[in-house]
């Protein structure tokens, strides 16, 4: 054992934040670390945080791109509150990320980037590496740019600029060493990615190795961490983001229906990755359609649903605003379809790359007239897979649009996914009425199934079932245009009852924690991980608290009302100003304590625990 070999400290979990200019490749660096950790067997959770501008001015706070990965030897539900390690590629990255770093955390900085000019751009009056401002942190100063250039000296074909682009892999190498990660996964990826430019692959790999060896051979780093593989249930895993899981869920649903998947959409952050994941899957009979606008995307979904496909669109809040007209027609036509809203910060254009839960009431009520649709929300990135399949089943059962409320946080975050066996996923039964001949009873396009109240899904091409649908008020059964007041009331109530009856089809609400808990925390969507972790820790600290996380919001699970009355106190934490709280209060008449955050950022475990304690303490 040489003298310089540092002590390896064993940690249960670590959160690392990679931060640099949006052009520095921080997302890539974070992704590589995540993949390697996942393959190594750690449970992981990630949160990319990048600016809306593709290339904001270099060196400025606006241009800082971050990627946080939390990996652990035990079950991880969140990307971690405060990271313990920060890799800052320039002063702006340091300044933007420092407030979130754990006190006494570790900082690895690229000293070459701490020039007068860059310090000024970040708004530093003096160099934080030289003054007292980083006191209490463990700071590792590495001249990454010059060391990296020296390491790549032999690469004659590369300009300095191209060499500097490898800097992120140099930084990654250091972190790989710190956390004892193997280099193979990243090496394989590099040589696959740059198969056509082997020199680039070589240079990046060399940078990665040099960073790793730097850690191994210099005495700069006195600390090394080991995070052992997590104990997850047996099976084969991969890492998956919410958008990837959503795309795979949709293809699974269409395959299980025996139908083509039609995905009509218009590019919008943070939903576009669903399109990117689906577009290459033509061999699954996936028919993606990039429409001229959000309105056209929704219109095309109506047409495809009429034609008998699994018809889906994906967008974010501003897109839903444009789509509401055609969604409303979907309610009137009573055709099955799925609308995915990957929520972002609002209102208006808001914060395209940030997360929020501000569109719940828009989903519930954002259409003219009485226009109920089913609303469901995934809890975790991998849950998007199950939710997509569930949405298809609900849409077909109710012959009605189903909205999935995902979130930017879920869409871009990754977690390990226990890969299911496709053969174990049950088929989704689709019934189309058979053709008719002269002399048969006339076809009644709005004759409802007595159990589900769904109308028949008769598709063009079926002889004898020719019928006209439209957005005008209709008579029952025939669906003919009717302005009869009784008809209007009957049809409106039936459409509402049809959605309400989906409650017979969805699972009952589960509660985590004791039945007699004083406080029930009720959450929905992407806050699951934080709230569950906080509740679990509060329980372990002896507090009387339970947690109900809603995946089904319209209709609510059948037993929700009795659960709400079972616990003396209800707390609803949301990343909005209290939209679920309003629904629950309005529907069930229970008193609800609210905890709301409007910072377009996920909740934090620490603050959640504080609110639980405060709520329990209230009289």
């Amino acid at each position, binding site marked *: 054992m040489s003298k310089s070999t540092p002590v390896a400290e064993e940690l249960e979990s670590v959160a690392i934040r990679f931060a640099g200019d949006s052009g520095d490749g921080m997302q890539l660096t974070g992704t590589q670390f995540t993949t390697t950790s996942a393959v190594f067997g750690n449970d992981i959770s990630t949160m990319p945080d990048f600016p809306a501008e593709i290339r904001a001015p270099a060196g400025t706070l606006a241009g800082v791109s971050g990627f946080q990965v939390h990996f652990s030897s035990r079950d991880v539900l969140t990307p971690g509150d405060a990271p313990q390690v920060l890799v800052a590629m320039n002063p702006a990255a340091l300044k933007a990320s420092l407030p979130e770093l754990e006190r006494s955390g570790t900082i690895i900085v690229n000293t070459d980037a701490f020039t007068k000019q860059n310090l000024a751009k970040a708004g530093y009056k003096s160099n934080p590496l030289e003054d007292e401002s980083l006191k209490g942190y463990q700071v590792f100063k590495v001249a990454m740019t010059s060391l990296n250039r020296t390491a790549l000296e032999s690469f004659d074909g590369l300009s300095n600029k191209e060499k500097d682009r490898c800097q992120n892999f140099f930084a990654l190498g250091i972190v790989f060493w710190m956390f004892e990660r193997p280099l193979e996964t990243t090496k394989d990826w590099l040589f696959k990615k740059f198969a056509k430019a082997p020199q680039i692959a070589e240079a990046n790999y060399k940078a990665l190795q040099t960073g790793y060896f730097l850690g191994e051979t210099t005495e700069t780093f006195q600390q090394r961490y080991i995070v052992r593989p997590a104990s997850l*249930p047996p099976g084969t895993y*991969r890492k998956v983001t919410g958008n990837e899981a959503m795309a795979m869920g949709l293809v699974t649903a269409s395959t299980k229906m025996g139908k083509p998947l039609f995905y009509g959409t218009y590019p919008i952050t943070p939903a576009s990755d669903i399109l990117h994941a689906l577009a290459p899957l*033509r061999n699954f009979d*996936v*028919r993606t359609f990039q429409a*001229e606008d959000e309105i056209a995307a929704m219109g095309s979904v*109506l047409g495809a649903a009429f034609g008998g496909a699994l*018809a889906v669109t994906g967008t974010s809040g501003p897109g839903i605003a444009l789509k509401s007209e055609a969604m409303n027609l979907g309610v009137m036509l009573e055709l099955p379809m799925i609308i995915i809203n990957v929520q972002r910060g609002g209102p208006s254009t808001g914060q395209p790359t940030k997360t929020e839960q501000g569109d719940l009431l828009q989903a519930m009520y954002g259409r003219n007239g009485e226009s109920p649709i089913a609303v469901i929300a995934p809890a975790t990135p991998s849950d998007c897979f199950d939710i997509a399949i569930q949405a298809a089943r609900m849409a077909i059962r109710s012959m009605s649009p189903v909205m999935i409320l995902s979130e930017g946080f879920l869409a871009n975050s990754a977690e390990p996914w226990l890969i299911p066996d496709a053969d174990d996923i049950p088929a989704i039964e689709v019934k189309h009425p058979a053709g008719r001949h002269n002399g048969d009873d006339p076809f009644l396009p709005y004759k409802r199934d007595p159990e589900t109240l769904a109308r028949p899904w008769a598709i063009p091409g079926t002889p004898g079932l020719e019928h006209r649908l439209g957005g005008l008020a209709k008579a029952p059964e025939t669906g003919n*245009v009717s302005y009869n007041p009784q008809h209007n009331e009957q049809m409106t109530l039936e459409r509402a009852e049809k959605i309400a009856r989906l409650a017979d089809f969805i699972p009952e609400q589960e509660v985590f924690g004791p039945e007699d808990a004083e406080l029930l925390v009720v959450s929905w969507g992407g806050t699951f991980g934080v709230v569950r972790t906080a509740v679990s820790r509060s329980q372990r600290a002896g507090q009387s608290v339970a947690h109900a996380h809603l995946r089904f919001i319209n209709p609510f699970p059948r037993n929700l009302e009795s659960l709400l009355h079972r616990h003396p106190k209800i707390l609803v934490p949301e990343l909005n100003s209290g939209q679920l709280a309003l629904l629950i209060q309005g529907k069930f008449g229970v008193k609800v304590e609210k905890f709301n955050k409007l910072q377009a950022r996920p909740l934090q475990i620490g603050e959640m625990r504080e609110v639980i304690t405060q709520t329990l303490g209230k009289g």
Partner: protein
Amino acid sequence: MSETLTNEITLTRKDFVSDQTVRWCPGCGDYSILAQVQRVMPELGVEKEKIVFISGIGCSSRFPYYMDTYGIHSIHGRAPTLATGLAIANPDLNIWVVTGDGDGLSIGGNHLIHALRRNVNMKIILFNNRIYGLTKGQASPTSRVGKVTKSTPMGTIESPVNPISLALAAEATFVARSIDSNPQHLAEVLSKAAAHKGTAFVEVYQNCVIFNPDEWNALSDRTNRDEVTLNLEHGMPLIFGKDKDKGIRMRGFTPEVVSLADVSLDEILVHDATSKPLASILGSMENPEYPAPMGVIRDVRKPTYAAGIMEQIAQAKAKRGVGDLNKLYRNDDLWTVSAREENQSEMAGELPLTLDEEYLDELGRAAVETTPVQDQLTEENVSALNPKVPITVDAGSSLSRAIRQMNRHNIGCLIVTDEEDRLSGIFTERDVLMRVTGLVDDLAHAAIGDYMTPNPIALKADPPIAQALHLMSLHGFRHLPLVDEENRPTGVISFRDVVEYLNRSLA
């Protein structure tokens, strides 16, 4: 199969008449268009169930209700978007879009452009009456400059859009024009549109008898219409007039009307429906300056949108095989958590399961050549180490209480148990040093469960000392819990116990 292929489709006009009462104003031009569409449909050779009519909003958009086919009366301006989705979902259908100048060119202008450029297989009939009828008489995007309407009492001040020029600019593959007052011509144009593969755009001059009744008088007057319309036939010279005595020739970049008495037939333009420049010229010729061109202005073949998608699907299936979900799920870096590892952590130290291969190898080697100490370590069991009685706490215990207990019992580790007294974690003095000291402010309110090592490796029953040593050296443990068959803690051995044992043995 051959039966269905050879089966003649015998339909009549009546097969396309729905049971709904037509509710347009008496004298409306829409009646004529409906009648011609119903007349043409049986001649298409298409099964009735494959025909779909889709409309937006407006007078013309009531059309689908009157056709006994599949149909959707959709929303204002959006009919092409529904038609596009339907054509992609089912490329075999024969889809018609019925729209008007307000629906198609104002609120739905964008969709019209993109449906045309994509060449989706749909026939678009645009009823142009140059007025908003259903909303009772406002100016439309095709109203002429100066038109006095309810919304423009002093006359419009906007230039109108030319639907044909717009369609050509959008790269439409089939562009034609007809008029409601000439049923024969209208039926011919609709038949040609129906035969076109791709988006066919047909502008129909249509009379709004209530709000814009005189708009097409000149073109509709039977006695004079041949003087003011130019009937286009592919390959034929552009000649018009009751006596076929006038023609169109080019003068520089401008078409001009000439008398055939003065000009040789060679100079007269010959219609070529495949020529885009000629189509642009014809599209720009507006009455009354020119005779209004009627008939097929442009007709070219390009692949349709849905055919393109289906071709890609076929290619992808040929190249990669029909999609396999299990392969899709696994198309990424994978790792496997085996049941063995799982048992290792959860079942805590069941002997055969905790022995990894490296250890077995070592045991194998040891059998060949062993020292007396090695023999002793593999023969004697951990009970010889005099394991200590475990001090257990539950996960909710506070750190301050835990540390007090460690001090009181003078021990380096606490065993954490669940409600059923089963092993759930271990908390050692090293944890105090690394995770607690200086990091946790309020020890009284921090639960040990948050700082312990969960599901620690434990020894079950009474295994050889060698195994305990191996686990300690492999993982760097200073303490190892012992558990019974139910995973309930029965003892703890520490590094110190091993040292004392060795001291005893070597003495």
